[in-house]
């Protein structure tokens, strides 16, 4: 905060003397904060360590050293869990502040090494036998349990991706389009189911007041999965695409209602962009599918694309003004 500005505001009588004193006190006692830098270092450390250990066992699978490595991973996981168990604040259904950033990242390391450990022993000793689904089910349950027990949003997101994996889809943000074969009926239906499930989980956490702050994570994953699934449905079930388009509009309507309710800019933009893709597909298909393969229709389609994009822009600007009074995410 710039002291000159606040001195001027004080002299103009816009802020009280005590307020100016407070600003001065805060500025004079301000320390140089390296909070985010240290968090980034920790994050990088956890990333490198868990990744390194993962590759280490993978490369040493059939050598004598692998049991030592396995023991080391188990030790890291158990040690981190023990540390978190000792440090954690008492459990509560509402939000529990974590003791410090180090706790958060140790929990993350514990969970990641645990997942590697399970995956390894399944490979080597087949403890779950041929029940392969169990091999993703067990880590998922443990991750969900840890997310709630220790109150950690990052672990919750890991648990959700594991739930998706258990159901058969990849939901990591940049991988969702690359790794899933959306040309299969089952994937699309599974994704719809998963999205609905996550929405329900988010709503229940608010309704029953169980870890209310988890709601955003659930709803966020749910929204993207549902939108992508309906768009995939439009492209895949070509003859029925209008049906899927109406489903897309229905989901967009639901999130529109939500974002009005919550004054959420984020969901407003998300639903606008996904709906635009849906619109664009409908426009494109009606032109290509029309019997008159005339340039006029191509012009018409382009004009419609432009007009609908301008319409979306006006829609966003209008709602931004409406929400402005209460600035939120």
């Amino acid at each position, binding site marked *: 905060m710039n002291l000159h500005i606040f001195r001027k505001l004080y002299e103009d009588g816009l802020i009280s003397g005590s307020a100016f004193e407070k600003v001065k006190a805060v500025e004079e006692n301000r320390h140089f904060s390296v909070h985010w830098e240290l968090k980034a270092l920790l994050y990088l450390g956890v*990333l490198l360590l868990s990744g390194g250990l993962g590759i280490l066992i993978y490369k040493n699978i059939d050598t004598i050293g692998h049991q030592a490595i396995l023991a080391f991973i188990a030790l890291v996981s158990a040690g981190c869990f023990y540390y978190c168990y000792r440090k954690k604040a008492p459990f509560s259904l509402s939000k529990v502040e974590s003791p410090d950033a180090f706790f958060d990242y140790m929990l993350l390391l514990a969970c990641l090494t645990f997942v590697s450990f399970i995956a390894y022993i399944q490979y080597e000793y087949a403890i779950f036998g041929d029940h392969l689904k169990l091999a993703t089910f067990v880590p998922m349950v443990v991750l969900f349990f840890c997310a709630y027990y220790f109150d950690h949003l990052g672990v919750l997101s890991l648990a959700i991706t594991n739930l998706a994996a258990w159901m058969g889809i990849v939901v990591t943000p940049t991988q969702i389009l690359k790794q899933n074969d959306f040309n299969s009926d089952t994937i699309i239906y599974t994704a719809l189911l998963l999205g609905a499930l996550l929405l329900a989980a988010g709503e229940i956490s608010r309704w029953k007041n169980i870890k209310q702050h988890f709601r955003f994570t659930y709803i966020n994953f749910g929204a993207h999965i549902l939108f992508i699934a309906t768009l995939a449905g439009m492209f895949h079930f070509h003859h029925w695409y209008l049906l899927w388009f109406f489903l897309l509009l229905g989901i967009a309507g639901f999130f529109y209602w939500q974002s009005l309710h919550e004054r959420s*800019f984020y969901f407003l933009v998300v639903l606008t962009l996904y709906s635009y893709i849906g619109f664009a597909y409908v426009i494109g298909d009606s032109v290509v599918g029309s019997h008159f393969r005339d340039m006029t229709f191509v012009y018409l389609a382009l004009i419609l694309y432009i007009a609908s994009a301008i319409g979306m822009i006006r829609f966003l600007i209008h709602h931004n003004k409406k929400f402005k009074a209460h600035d939120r995410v």
Partner: protein
Amino acid sequence: MIVYNKEWLDNAALQQEAGYAYQEECISAEEKARIDEAYPSGFYTPNPFIRIGLFLLTTIVVLFSLALCWLIFMTPMEHVWRFLIFFSGLATYIALELFIREKHHYRSGVDDGLLWMSIILLLSAINIELDLPAWFRCAIIFLFAVYATLRFADMIMSACAILALLGTLFYLYLETGSIARATVPFVIMAASLLICQLAQRWSHIEKWRHYANCLTTAEITSLITLYLAGNYFVVREVSNEMFGLHLLPGQSIPAGWLFWATTILIPILYILLGIRKKNLLLLRIGVVLSAASIYTIRHYYSILSIEAAMTLSGLLLIALAYALIRYLHTPRYGFTYHPVNRAHLFERLQAESLIITETFATPQTPRSSDFKFGGGSGGGGGADGSW
């Protein structure tokens, strides 16, 4: 020169300061409202998410309009495309000016989209297929970027301006003869240092307060180019490509030791200076560039196997961070571990948890019976999805 209403710019900056003071609970909500009323700013600046949405949609509108014009004019006239691109660039620019003057858009996504599209279109119309020397192309880009920076105070444009200026210098200097090839890294380094110093000095000038962010961006850019010009990997590969040295793997460039020294020393210097001057910018760039240096060293000398290096450095980093967090729990020498008390956008979006999923997990369900460990079913064990 600047297109925005200067009084509003000042008022917007003042409102922002008042916002910080309100978040730190120094001033009351009433006082904040009174300040906003006394210093009104009529800009249309939406929420950051809306800005992203508007930016994407604006870009779509410009691209489809270009496609429409193309279809209408291409059929009768084959060779008009250069004029077409040029005129659509001009039209986009006029739309930009209108949106800012009439609708008072300021960092709204619409103005960002129109500015970038108009600059890109105008530059492509000039640069594509015309037989121009490389330095001249860079110089044209520099002129456009400088104009855009001065007129719209756009940070990315200022970074482009610095890069284009260095590019011009690079190509012009190379034309002076054979000695230039050996000395060009030092010229770029010296120029970067000069730009950095000037940007630092100018960002405190009251008259140029509206460009403070641009000058900071210029400073960041030049700090990075200063490092890159002395980076061993960059120097070796660029001279190999451009001057045809035909180096075999393992062969070094002339005066290689000098570039190894700059590769290793510059990040350390940045970090030390950052700590001494309490300059967050230098500190962060220094840390990021150290990672680049480590990568450079590993590229030529594999000291440890990748997994051993990852495990060890991971352990080391965690230990270092733990020690520093413990040490700075009570503020020392003006440094503290405790966060600045501002509601970061970062925290509001819970972006941290998203980053965690992004980097740790590429889980796949085991497909039928060929459950392979290397298949990546490790759920979270994968380093970065590269298994």
